[in-house]
């Protein structure tokens, strides 16, 4: 396949940046989108042009590092896949492909297509954990009975890989789906009960401080989320938040 790419190039945080057009040739339709970018970078290097910087790590859809807004959609036109899982057969030979970084005030562009998703880390640090004593007398997790439906729901929420596609897609740049998944996963489990109220208050607080927008229930995040995280969790987080706000003991 031969393609025309319009790629966002930006030297550093301060640079204004802009779209630059590059042709790529000889792309296999079985290649992944990131492999196609590898080919582009090889071609650029031979021409003495600086390769395009983009995020990636596992390349199998589990780490959440790869990002990219491809042809107007987070992770491109396919559903329930990350960019590393996106196949080139989703595109037509000769097509022009727009490649932009995820856009959000809370995800500043560092270079080219690489954005800083540290805001997600800080939200996690604000409450996305449970405190357990690890000094040798740790209780076996399986000693706690957990109803199967609860375990299933917690697992559904926990599949969120923190990629940020929800933020990138949302017209409000809202991080609600991500935060809702992280808040919910613990709220279903006995281990999550101790810090349940503090957790939702602190995580939502941090989310607001990072400058994400407010959810207006367009549902775009759910459609573009590679893990199919459900909007149901956002309602759950709102309920958790309402509950925590209205109880005097936290």
């Amino acid at each position: 396949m031969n393609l025309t790419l319009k790629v966002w190039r930006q030297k550093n945080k301060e640079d204004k940046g802009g779209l630059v057009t590059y042709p790529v040739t000889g792309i296999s339709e079985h290649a992944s989108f990131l492999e196609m970018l590898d080919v582009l970078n090889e071609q650029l290097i031979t021409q003495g042009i600086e390769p395009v910087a983009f995020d990636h790590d596992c390349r199998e859809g589990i780490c959440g590092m790869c990002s990219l807004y491809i042809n107007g959609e987070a992770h491109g036109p396919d559903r329930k896949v990350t960019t590393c899982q996106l196949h080139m057969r989703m595109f037509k030979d000769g097509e022009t492909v727009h490649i932009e970084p995820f856009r959000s005030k809370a995800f500043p562009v560092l270079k080219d297509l690489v954005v800083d998703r540290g805001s997600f880390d800080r939200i996690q640090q604000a409450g996305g954990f449970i405190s357990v004593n690890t000094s040798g007398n740790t209780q076996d997790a399986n000693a706690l009975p957990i109803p199967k439906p609860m375990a299933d729901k917690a697992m559904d929420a926990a599949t969120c890989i923190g990629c940020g596609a929800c933020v990138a897609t949302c017209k409000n740049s809202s991080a609600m789906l991500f935060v809702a998944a992280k808040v919910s996963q613990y709220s279903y489990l006995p281990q999550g009960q101790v810090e349940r109220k503090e957790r939702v208050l602190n995580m939502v607080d941090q989310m607001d401080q990072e400058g994400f927008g407010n959810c207006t229930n367009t549902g775009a995040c759910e459609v573009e989320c590679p893990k199919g995280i459900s909007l149901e969790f956002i309602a759950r987080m709102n309920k958790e938040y309402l509950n925590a706000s209205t109880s005097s003991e936290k």
Partner: protein
Amino acid sequence: MSNGFSNSSVGRKVLMALSGFFLITFLTLHFVINFLSVFSADLFNMASHFMGTNWIIQFLMQPVLMFGTLFHLGMGINLELKNKAARPIKYAMNKANENSSWISRNMLITGIMILLFLGLHFYDFWIPEIQDKFVDGIWDNPTKYFPHLVHKFEDPIRVIIYCVSFVFLALHLLHGFQSAFQSAGFNHTKYTPLIKKLGYLFAIVVPLGFIFIAVFHHLCSH
């Protein structure tokens, strides 16, 4: 620690939903009373007279409604401005239609169309009421409501503006009705699909009913 319920994004969404529920309740009442005018002038006069002269409604419920509407409007604009600020650099290419509906993305636009309509609606029905009651001092005129209504809908331009406005109301409610439940934290495997259906029904039947009322009186007056 937390910076407070009404300052947080989630808290504000919940308040937005509550004001939305309140407006939906009001709209339902307004609709039922207006629909009486189709069946009987006397019934409509009676209900309107009650609403217009009952002190609890006039001096408690009416200010609450004003506040609720202004709150909904103010909060809606406030949230929208924050949301715009959350993405300072736009995408060169964005296929929003692939993942969300136009109505869900343009609640502010449909809301502002409703607001513009409210301006006309106040001019038509609320200002004359204030004139009657507070300037002329006439509180007891139980038969004025129906003729006033009919008179207003003689003008075809006004009927058209009203009908178009009700279409915007329908668009606002098509998303808003179910969205308010979600914002308030209610999402249930069994009930949410029902709420969605009920919301679509409400969002179509009520504005269509209002359109019917306007057109009905226009045709009857000719």
